[in-house]
């Protein structure tokens, strides 16, 4: 019988060889890999209306999902949706589970340290909203109120800065939880994109939710990993073409109901 210690050692060695072998150096860049595999993996957040939702068949839909579909079509590849919550949008990209994330990632300098932005494909605004009975007219009215925000979003980066001392900020892992917290009265107000708020307000007329304060506006765009310059360039070219021919405007209007503002480029 082989000494168990030796057997364990052989197992560990085999495992190491396997792991290292998997990391074979590849000379292909990400765009080439996508083209040769004929598949692009796009991370989307399907719990973030109207940018990402689930349709009645449980399939991804929404403005960014539609953009992703069109992008894959023009790239000539299949598309695989990697569903992530808001906290997973950047980690999924960094971990290589997706080639690009198209999930209303607002342009911020902090995020730009970890990922590369493509040109923006849309704009959003973050507002604080609450039931009619809750009186919030200026930021100082937030003192003593519980304000719900979602982790890893633009509102997480901006609301704590504009809310005065004495505001009780409450963090949730995803937008769905934040929304439910507001609807069940666990928080007095919540911050999210104005579009999401409209969706929630329309679906719950009895709560009489209304916009109270504007926090900030921002452009958002697809993101890729650092050093994926070829992919970024292709996406930017695609964005240029589809801004010119009105495709982006049509998609945006269809899901948000508003016109796409002029999109700046880097």
């Amino acid at each position: 019988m082989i000494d168990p210690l030796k057997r364990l050692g052989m197992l560990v060695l085999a495992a190491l060889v396997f792991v290292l072998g998997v990391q074979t150096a590849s000379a292909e860049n990400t765009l080439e890999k996508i083209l040769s595999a004929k598949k692009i993996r796009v991370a989307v957040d399907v719990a973030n209306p109207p940018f990402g939702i689930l349709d009645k068949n449980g399939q991804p839909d929404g403005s960014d999902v539609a953009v992703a579909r069109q992008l894959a079509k023009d790239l000539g590849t299949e598309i695989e949706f990697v569903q992530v919550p808001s906290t997973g949008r950047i980690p999924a990209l960094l971990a290589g589970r997706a080639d690009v994330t198209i999930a209303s990632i607002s342009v911020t300098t902090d995020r730009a340290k970890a990922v590369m932005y493509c040109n923006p494909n849309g704009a959003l605004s973050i507002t604080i909203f609450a039931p009619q009975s809750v009186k919030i007219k200026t930021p100082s009215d937030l003192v003593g109120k519980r304000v719900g925000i979602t982790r890893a979003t633009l509102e997480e980066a901006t609301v704590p800065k504009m809310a005065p001392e004495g505001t009780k900020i409450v963090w949730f892992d995803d937008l769905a939880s934040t929304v439910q917290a507001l609807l069940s009265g666990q928080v007095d107000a919540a911050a999210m994109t104005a579009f999401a708020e409209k969706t929630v307000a329309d679906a719950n007329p009895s709560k009489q939710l209304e916009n109270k304060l504007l926090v900030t506006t921002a452009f958002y765009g697809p993101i890729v990993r650092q050093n994926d310059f070829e992919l970024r360039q292709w996406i930017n070219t695609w964005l240029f073409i589809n801004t010119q021919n009105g495709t982006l405007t049509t998609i945006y209007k269809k899901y948000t109901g508003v016109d796409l503002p002029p999109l700046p480029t880097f």
Partner: protein
Amino acid sequence: MSRSFGLPEFVYIVAAIRWTLLLSLVAFVGGGLVGFAVAILRTTQSRILRLLTTGYIQLFQGTPVLMQLFVFYYGFAVLFDMQVDAWPAVALAFTLYAGAFLGEIWRGSIQAIPRTQWEASACLSLDYLQQLRFVILPQAMRISIPPTVGFLVQLIKNTSIAAIIGFVELTRAGQLMVNVTFQPMVVYPLVAALYFALCWPLSLLSRFLEKGIDANLGVKRPL
């Protein structure tokens, strides 16, 4: 853009059960293999092996499952620059988690076998592996079945934690449907009822087996 809770939403939730079951199965089988190795290694003579396996068990029994998931899902890939998809990361995390607990359960079962069994089989000139294979393990397996089935229940319930990282299984399906219907009063109790339907029969089975074992073998359970 919201819908009220109806048949399509119900179907979406029930259909997600297959992911819960699949994840539980993969973790149970994989964890079973790991746990088996761990249980054996824990009872060998080599001090290093015992230390390593004890360390592994302490690590996975002393940290929250959610933390383990985060490490495998977010941390690992960044660390090793590897492209780890969601399913392998989550499956690996649960496999190692199950392996630690099953290893402990099975080690306890092996150690519950009276010393006399070892001595008697040694007298019959069986070596260590033969002792395990023909005398100890068959008896240990019978004792270990009730707590193993009990752990399977824990495992199925703990797969719900994967919902927090957005992994789509039964609980996450519930969250997504609440997001669409805004009716947590309907959806979450439904999700709970579905888990109950999965787990309760197993719990009953585990208890039935436990009574059966005691009555038949008269072997004292380790406390």
